[in-house]
């Protein structure tokens, strides 16, 4: 008789291996992964994209489509029973009721055509609660997770909420049946820092109230430092390290963990300040932009010196992307001037702007969308010279593309490939090479590294920094991630609701922020060091004077 597996843990994954059969061959998503979760504990699975960090959660929730997926080995013990041997109906009864899950992008994960009250109540009616009771509890849950005007909110649709509120709605739905375990897959990745802090705090409070086990899947060391008791570090389908979160950070055993911790931005010395002298390369004066009744920019002024990196930080809706688009004339403001070497870009004719286009280039957040999927890398990069033939004679294009690819850390023979054949980080390098092809003076980076894994992010930042030194480039660096800004920028502009609330050197902003909003942003930003984070937490609690109800 086979030995019946036993476990003293609430949830235990043993020796799990999952494969996916794709056109390109079999991908071993996770191999022999084992971990466990206890009641009241928070376990973080840390890894970069493609590490397989979400696969075991998908296996627990029975979300792996088979085929193409296949669980080749392992057991998943929940309360001592192997979930992989249960019937589909038994699995369904556990999903939501006993083990609930929330996801990264709450807008995509809420059904767009049903009111949120109904969607939350459905969690309970699915598991046998009568409709009226479920609605009543849904309303209580909306109050509990801090949704304003909960009665009205019940009848609203997901698109009518902000990103942070949507994640609160997901959380309300997930805890509706008082599950034993809550799995949170990158729950705060798409959120602003201050909202991220609130959502993590909410998860923690709910865990304290209910004693549920929390499984957190994340790429962010800061999130681990903030909330996790234990951490499992994954790399290409294997667990490389596991242990107490603080100990793993302080004393990482595996080379990959060390690399990950080293790549985390925002540590070390702030680089020495450079003097600002001479004429600014670009100067914005009194920029105003409205969309209907919404004031996106309310008279913004700043300047960029040659060779300088100016970061614009702020949360969603602060107007930072509108500013970026105004600078390169993708979206003209209604009022104000953008003086490029003393000449107003906004007052120029289309022909004059065309001549200057090559000086001002932009790198966007999502290279998957900003690179035409039907153009080869060679065509993507050389298109610049098709449009501006005076830059380079045609016979030199091939050599120059190869040269640019080497410059951004790719190989010259990659020129014939198409964007989908590259990883996210490589695609962003292609986008940078394309911008460099124009031989620009200023590159506007709109969240250009936000979508990248930490280690890739560090590489791209190093690349941008090297190019600045080599070509004397200036950057306008739009970001929401403060540690990256600290590493990369010379000066920082803090925006809120269409206005600049504070401006200064990196040292001034990070060491001595004056404006309360800058202080709040910095306080909410997560440090990868659990000790630093613990200190900040207690400081935050003292600041608030109470644990929020």
């Amino acid at each position, binding site marked *: 008789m086979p030995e019946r597996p036993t476990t003293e843990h609430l949830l235990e994954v043993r020796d799990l291996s999952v494969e996916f059969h794709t056109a390109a061959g079999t991908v071993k998503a996770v191999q022999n992964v084992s971990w466990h979760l206890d009641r009241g504990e928070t376990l973080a699975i840390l890894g970069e994209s493609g590490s397989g960090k979400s696969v075991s959660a998908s296996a627990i929730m029975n*979300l792996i489509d088979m085929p193409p997926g296949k669980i080749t080995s392992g057991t998943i013990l929940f309360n001592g029973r192997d979930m992989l041997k249960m019937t589909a109906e038994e699995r369904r009864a556990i*999903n939501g009721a006993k083990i609930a899950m929330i996801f990264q992008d709450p807008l995509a994960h809420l*059904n*767009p*055509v049903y009111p949120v009250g109904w969607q939350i109540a459905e969690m309970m009616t*699915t598991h046998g609660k009568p409709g009226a009771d479920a609605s009543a509890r849904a309303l209580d849950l909306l109050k509990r997770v801090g949704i304003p005007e909960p009665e009205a909110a019940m009848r609203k649709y997901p*698109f009518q909420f902000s990103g942070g509120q949507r994640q609160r709605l997901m959380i309300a739905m997930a805890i509706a049946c008082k599950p034993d375990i809550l799995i949170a897959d990158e729950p705060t990745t798409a959120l602003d820092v201050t909202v991220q802090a609130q959502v993590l705090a909410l998860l923690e409070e709910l865990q304290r109230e209910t004693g549920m086990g929390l499984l957190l899947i994340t790429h962010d060391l800061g999130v681990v430092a903030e909330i996790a008791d234990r951490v499992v570090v994954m790399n290409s389908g294997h667990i490389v390290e596991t242990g107490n979160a603080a100990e793993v950070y302080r004393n990482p055993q595996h080379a990959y963990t060390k690399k990950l911790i080293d790549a985390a931005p925002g540590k070390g010395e702030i680089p020495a300040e450079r003097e600002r002298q001479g004429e600014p390369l670009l100067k914005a004066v009194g920029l105003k932009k409205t969309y209907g009744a919404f004031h996106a920019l309310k008279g913004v002024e700043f300047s960029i010196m040659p060779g300088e990196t100016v970061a614009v930080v702020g949360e969603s809706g602060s107007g930072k992307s509108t500013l970026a688009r105004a600078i390169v004339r993708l979206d003209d403001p209604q009022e104000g001037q953008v003086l490029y070497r003393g000449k107003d870009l906004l007052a120029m004719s289309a022909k004059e702007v065309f001549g200057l286009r090559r000086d001002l280039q932009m790198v966007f957040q999502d290279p998957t969308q900003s690179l035409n999927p039907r153009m080869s890398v060679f065509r993507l990069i050389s298109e610049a010279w098709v449009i501006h033939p005076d830059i380079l004679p045609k016979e030199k294009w091939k050599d120059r593309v190869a040269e640019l690819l080497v410059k951004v850390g790719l190989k010259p023979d990659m020129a014939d490939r198409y964007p989908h054949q590259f990883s996210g980080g490589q695609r962003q390098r292609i986008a940078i090479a394309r911008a460099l092809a124009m031989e620009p003076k200023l590159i506007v980076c709109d969240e250009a590294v936000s979508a990248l894994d930490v280690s890739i992010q560090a590489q791209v930042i190093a690349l941008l920094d090297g190019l600045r030194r080599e070509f004397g480039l200036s950057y306008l660096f739009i970001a929401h991630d403060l540690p990256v800004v600290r590493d990369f920028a010379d000066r920082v502009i803090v925006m809120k609701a269409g206005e600049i609330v504070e401006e200064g050197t990196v040292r001034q902003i990070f060491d001595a922020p004056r404006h309360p909003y800058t202080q709040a942003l910095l306080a909410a930003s997560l440090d990868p060091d659990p000790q630093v984070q613990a200190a900040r937490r207690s400081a935050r609690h003292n600041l608030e004077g109470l644990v929020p109800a």
Partner: protein
Amino acid sequence: MKSFIGKRAIASGVSLVVLVVIVFFLSRLTGDPTNLYLPIDATQEMRDQFRQMHGFNDPLIVQFGRYVMDLVQGNFGNSLRQARPAMDVVLEAFTWTLWLAVITMVLVTIAAIVIGSLAAFRVGGVFDRLATFFSLIGAAAPDFWVAIVAIVIFAVNLHVLPTSGTGSVWHWVLPVSVLFIRPFGLILQVVRGSMISVLSSAYVKTARAKGVQSRSIIFVHGLRNAMLPVITVIGDQAAAILNGAVVVETVFGFPGIGKLMIDSILLRDFAVVLAVIMVSALAIFIMNLLIDLAYALLDPRIRY
């Protein structure tokens, strides 16, 4: 919403006017219908009298002016062939076609949605393959051929259904069945495709993580989202039948608007042709409005 409907009505009114003008002049280009209506041995005097009576002697622009004046007073002119108001003739025929379209499209919609959704749930399964196979044949089948074969089999050989005309429920079976085939094939394909993408969406993943039953995932979470592209095709297909299922109505001798249109064109019954066009255009306008309203009804993000 009201202003949206108002704007739409104005835009449609303008296109209707343009359409009437074009059709009026184009139809007169086909010549004088006198010879079609009078016996071959009619005297020149009788011919002149006929022309005089129906105003075919006046310059085109005068005829047009008269037509417009009558139109403004709600008079669509008389049918040459039936010698009664053209609009009465058209509305009679339109009622038949409307029923034909409604019955067919209700059956098509229900069948295509249920079968298409189930096919999408297990892509590549036996059910999916069968549904796809038959729907592609249906979408490609020429209706004149299907109609004739159906008559041969069910009316001529088996004697179970009447060949043509109206009168009993049985008269509807063949026209509805033949009209059913192509829209069913097309709409099933659209439902299946739309449902496949919806079922792989993030919110369906959430529903699975909630433990929602498969039936609810398909027909509650999936269907309402999957219906948006489907509605457009349903509207198109319904409009095609409303505009006159010319072939099917002719083959089955069904007194609908398609058959009336062909007959009036052949007989140069101008007043009826114009009335048919106006009624069809109005039907299309209402159909498009209904599609837009259905969009707003299904998707709260769409507001006019």
